């Protein structure tokens, strides 16, 4: 049993640090560059993101293994997963508006953005490909969410400082953000080989 737990822990660490979605798999970049301008929005996005990620990983695992696999229609996975995610986002939007309007006012806009995020779709796809168990899928979702949150927060704190820096004119804005991301990604390559699954 304890062996299982170490395995899960390794999965979370590997998904968040070693195979960080932003820096080594290059997913979710649109959102990454879009919302990392301010610390506050970055934190809000991260919280929404981690929760939606775990729920969608769980729900799509259930649908994939209990419906698609027995019926042998796994080739429909893209259509089904995107449907699940869109439905889930809509649902949590409605529930949040009813249950806690204050929270909705703060995080509502991020919810709408999330459905067009490729990470959210990539997690169920990778789960299906690697044939993870239900618990492993949840752990993978959590780890990926944490990794994305980490990336967003690092980037947001750097970009807040960058506002004051004197950047060459053609590099202003996005190009500079790309170069900085490259530098962070270079640092993250140091994590590779930390754990071999």
């Amino acid at each position: 049993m304890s062996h299982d737990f170490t395995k899960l822990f390794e999965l979370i660490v590997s998904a968040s640090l070693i195979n960080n979605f932003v820096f080594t798999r290059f997913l979710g970049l649109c959102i990454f560059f879009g919302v990392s301008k301010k610390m506050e929005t970055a934190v809000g996005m991260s919280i929404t993101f981690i929760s939606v990620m775990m729920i969608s990983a769980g729900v799509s695992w259930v649908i994939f293994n209990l419906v698609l696999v027995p019926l042998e229609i796994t080739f429909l996975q893209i259509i089904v997963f995107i449907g699940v995610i869109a439905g889930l986002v809509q649902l949590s939007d409605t529930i949040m508006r009813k249950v806690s309007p204050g929270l909705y006012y703060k995080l509502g806009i991020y919810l709408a953005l999330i459905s067009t995020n490729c990470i959210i779709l990539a997690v169920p796809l990778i789960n299906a490909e690697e044939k993870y168990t239900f618990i492993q899928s949840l752990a993978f979702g959590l780890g990926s969410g944490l990794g994305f949150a980490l990336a967003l927060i690092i980037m947001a704190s750097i970009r807040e400082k960058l506002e004051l820096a004197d950047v060459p004119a053609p590099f202003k804005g996005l190009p500079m953000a790309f170069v900085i991301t490259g530098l962070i990604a270079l640092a993250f390559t140091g994590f590779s080989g930390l754990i071999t699954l």
Partner: protein
Amino acid sequence: MSSHSTVSLKDQILNGIIKENTIFKLALSLCPSIAVTNNLKNGVFMGGAVLFVQVMVNMTISLMRNVIHPKVRLPIFMLVISGWVTVTQMLMAAFAPDVYAKVGLYIALIVAFASILARAEMFASKNSFLPSMADGLGMGIGFLFALTTISFFRELVGKGSLWGFPIIDTKPVLLLILPAGGFFAVGILMAGFNWINARAAAKAAAKAKAALATR
């Protein structure tokens, strides 16, 4: 569509390639621009897949535009897009299995491209068949062009080869094929694009000023 008869099909295609280039100008759909561009072949195939999906989706949506109820249009667009992406995925797995093994996940993620949904929503759902096709072609070619440029640059400098054939015989800059190098490459190319545009704008402004002065 009388409002669009003044804009020629050629202009529409050029619009997607230069004025609204998805990657360099709008900074959308960035994920594959870094993930699959470490060699030219992957970049070209990925760009081709996006081009195919964009054109097919635009054509399908513009044919269906009169029967889609506006309230359910977004789910229907998603359905059409994911259908065409699945077709692309299957075609690629069958005809280019070696490339598919490397870029397969990113092909599936074309579904989540903001740019494809945006063109369906903003253009194809309001225009007739031919302009929509031209728009899709332009946008797709623009994307292909961006991916080709990035992967050309990265493979040539990072590996000293093109399409797998060795070209330069010196020691390559390994950094550019590493994941981190992708960010540098895109950042530098984007800055280059900005620089060229800024120069062109400055030249045009100077010309206008000179014309004004002589008059």
